């Protein structure tokens, strides 16, 4: 082995003996990135989701300006529970949690995937203030 390939091979040593899952973690969610921004969004009328207006135009512009996140965590006014929970299902359903709006709004689907179990676990571990449980029933409500 020449010097160059020896150095290359030795770079893999830290990963030897890792489970595949850990290896993915090391490449994925464990890698420290530049801090993501944080948002508070006044969502208001559910119709803002489908009406092109000053609010939704700004949402679109902000989405284009932000770095692409690895995941999105939404703390919505519309999910109140007994105890603190996080959604942990692979395919969260779109929840149309309102009444008296046009059919077109009820037809909106937001089929974003759910998160990895590793990220769910990390979130639960990060929150030391309260005990957090995983939920498999909710989905993404109109606040999200």
């Amino acid at each position, binding site marked *: 082995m020449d010097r160059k390939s020896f150095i290359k091979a030795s770079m893999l040593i830290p990963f030897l003996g890792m489970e595949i899952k850990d290896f993915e973690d090391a490449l994925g969610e464990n890698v420290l990135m530049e801090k993501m921004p944080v*948002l508070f969004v006044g969502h208001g009328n559910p119709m803002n989701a489908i009406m092109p207006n000053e609010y939704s135009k700004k949402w679109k512009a902000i989405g284009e300006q932000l770095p692409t996140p690895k995941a999105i965590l939404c703390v*919505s006014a519309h999910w109140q529970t007994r105890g603190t929970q996080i*959604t942990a299902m692979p395919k969260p359903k779109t929840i149309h949690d309102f009444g008296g709006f046009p059919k077109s709004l009820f037809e909106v689907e937001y089929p*974003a*995937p759910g998160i990895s179990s590793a990220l769910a676990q990390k979130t639960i571990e990060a*929150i030391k203030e309260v005990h957090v449980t995983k939920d498999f029933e*909710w989905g993404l409500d109109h606040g999200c």
Partner: protein
Amino acid sequence: MFPKANIPTFQLSLDYLSKPEIHFKIGMQLQSLRQKGVLIIGSGNLVHNLGKLSHENKPHDWAIEFDELAKNKILEGNFASLVGYKGLGKAASLSIPTNEHYLPLLYTLALKQSSDSLQFFNESIDMGSISMRSLLIGA
């Protein structure tokens, strides 16, 4: 915001029984997720009183007053007084008749570090009693 719907997304619930201080502390503890590439979004409304909607779209004086007061507290970095919103007078109690739309703001504020920039957007009051004021932190 992300119309392709291709980014893994999850929600954190609001415990009915937790006090505002607890919501703020939970928010602070989410800080490490920012460095893992997680975009945290609080979604609600700073002023939200559906019983006082105005069909003429004219903002109530108390809605303007509390929206402005909250804006100034945010700019001063005085988040503790926003956590203790119940001590902020009549405009606050009319703006926050129930706190589920207000609490997501506390999560966002809890995540602001001194080095983070702060920008407001959608600074208006819709239908008389809904503040659309939004915040972008650390961008």
